[in-house]
């Protein structure tokens, strides 16, 4: 008899047991066991233990959530239950799925949870793009804090200033984490993502909109407040489109212009929320505040239609981070290096002015 059954009988004799469709209570005429499939009454402790043997998945499920995960951290428990869809799927079908592995995506992370014969869960964590790769083809890690280094550089070795930037590099795997270490590792890749997701589910997420977040800034960032003029929020739409789009950041932007005014840009489909403009957005907005303080002017440039389109191609390629993907000899791409160098050779004067037109009147 498994120790999970002993523990379950003990718990049933005290306050009763109720979890995920399993109910065991102690009545005057003995124990009563209920599952969606069957009900048995008047059982002695030994009968109960025997009968539970026929409902082993229910019993190990109860043991795992009660004694292994426990209630000490409600957010950890909620996250682990979400990973295997514990609130949506009944034990028999969930256990079937768990034996094959249940997959969940969290930003660019892919969690696969499996169960063994004792109901013990094991979590495999890797980059979503590595979902179909053999574990042996990936670098294995076991310590949650190893994620710190993996999260620091993108695949070109450049520093990632935003942990939730959509440029997490792959090539690694944490093949068998327990629940606690899974949550630690996820929290190392995406700090505070689980607590914020949990608060959102509980209806207590403290979203702080643009106006309030900017209003809170002091020192060198207090200037951003001067960018807001009246009710217009087009400038913040542009900020959100530039920085918060799903192609750039895996958080789902929940902050808006203010309590009453939503931005016109969609917040995205991320699994976990963004509750206020981050420090990167604020630092960039400080620069934009200065740049956007300038008045427009009329310049006159002479470009061929293809040159105009090429300028647009270059802007698109830089904005979409595609520059490195354009092949050296692909002269059909406007943002190709040779095409761009040709444009510069033809149109720039010695001071780097487009078409020889100075930026400021002399």
């Amino acid at each position, binding site marked *: 008899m498994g120790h999970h059954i002993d523990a379950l009988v003990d718990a049933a004799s005290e306050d009763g047991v109720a979890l995920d469709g399993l109910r065991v209570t102690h009545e005057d005429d003995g124990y009563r066991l209920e599952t969606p499939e069957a009900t048995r009454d008047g059982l002695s402790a030994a009968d109960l233990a025997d009968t539970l043997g026929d409902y082993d998945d229910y019993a190990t499920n109860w043991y795992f959530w009660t004694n292994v995960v426990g209630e000490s951290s409600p957010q950890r428990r909620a996250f682990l239950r979400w990973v295997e869809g514990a609130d949506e799927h009944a034990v028999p079908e969930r256990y079937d799925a768990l034996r094959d592995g249940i997959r969940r995506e969290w930003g660019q992370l892919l969690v696969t949870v499996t169960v063994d014969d004792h109901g013990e869960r094991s979590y495999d964590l890797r980059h979503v793009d590595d979902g179909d790769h053999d574990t042996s083809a990936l670098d294995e890690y076991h310590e949650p804090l190893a994620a710190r280094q993996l999260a620091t*550089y993108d695949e070109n070795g450049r*520093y990632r*200033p935003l942990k939730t930037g959509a440029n997490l590099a792959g090539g690694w795997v944490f093949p068998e984490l327990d629940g606690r270490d899974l949550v630690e590792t996820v929290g190392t890749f995406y*700090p*505070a993502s689980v*607590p914020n997701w949990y608060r959102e589910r509980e209806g207590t997420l403290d979203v702080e909109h643009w106006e309030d977040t900017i209003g809170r800034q*002091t*020192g060198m960032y207090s200037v951003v407040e001067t960018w807001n003029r009246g009710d217009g929020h087009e400038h913040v739409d542009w900020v959100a489109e530039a920085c918060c789009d799903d192609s750039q950041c895996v958080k789902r932007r929940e902050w808006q212009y203010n309590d009453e005014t939503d931005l016109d840009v969609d917040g995205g489909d991320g699994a976990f929320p963004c509750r206020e403009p981050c*420090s*990167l957005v604020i630092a960039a907005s400080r620069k934009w505040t200065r740049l956007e303080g300038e008045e427009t002017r009329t310049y006159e440039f002479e470009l061929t239609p293809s040159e105009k389109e090429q300028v647009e191609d270059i802007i698109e390629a830089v904005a979409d981070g595609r520059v490195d993907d354009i092949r050296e000899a692909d002269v059909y791409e406007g943002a190709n290096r040779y095409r761009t160098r040709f444009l510069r050779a033809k149109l720039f004067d010695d001071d780097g002015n487009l078409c020889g037109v100075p930026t400021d009147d002399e």
Partner: protein
Amino acid sequence: MQALVIVAHGSHLNPDSSTPTYDHADTIREVGAFDEVRTGFWKEEPSIREVLRTVEADEVYVVPLFISEGYFTEQVIPRELRLDGWDVADWDSDGLSASHVTLTASDVPEKTVHYCGPVGTHEAMTDVIVRRAETVTRDPNVGDGFGLAVVGHGTERNENSAKAIEYHADRIRQMDRFDEVQALYMDEDPEVDDVTDYFESEDVVVVPLFVADGFHTQEDIPEDMGLTDDYRTGYDVPTVVDGHRIWYAGAVGTEGLMADVVLERAADAGADIGDALTVVRERTRKTPQEAN
């Protein structure tokens, strides 16, 4: 349950900025003095704003990895942590003596938050500067025949920054260990550019009182002192400048013993850390001590 939260500046551009914070957190985690050790940043994640919600423990000791009291420790960090009823007067500090206050934070109202003074002004920091000198010279007894310069920003940005430099320079002088001790500054006299003018000793250890290596410690100061014309080409330790051997230590905050100061701050605020201080002092030593 008690947790330690180290808060630091961090950077959007330089990955080295947060390295010392992580290193010291790891050292403290390994000695097991706290149930949890977390880090939070102004420019990285989790933000100081969200770090408290990553903590499970109900007693939280927050230690700022900053050099001096000022804008960050007095305004930014308390605001971002959402400390209820924070008033800098509660620190009752002369610019060097902030120790801790015990408050709640509206972000996690069920927890008790002990908000500590910055590491840079703690007296234990003096030992870190000396340890840094030992590490860079690879001599556990360095002192005889050596001068020591402690370098900081001047008063321009924050007058308390100069106070911290003076304070530690004075304390090291009183140890009577180095032949000469001098406080130097980046933006005022006595300037670090003229380091060799201020010392008679042939050997001079230069220790910048900065939390992390970055622009100032890796580019400005080495070039200002004439260790190199171009920081990208690097420099030797020591480098001879005007007949002096300059042993440039880089940011003091990268020294392993900094973990000890973080622990001291938390212990002063009431954290129960057992024998962690002794263990950390030994484990972080890079130069073996000779038997006496």
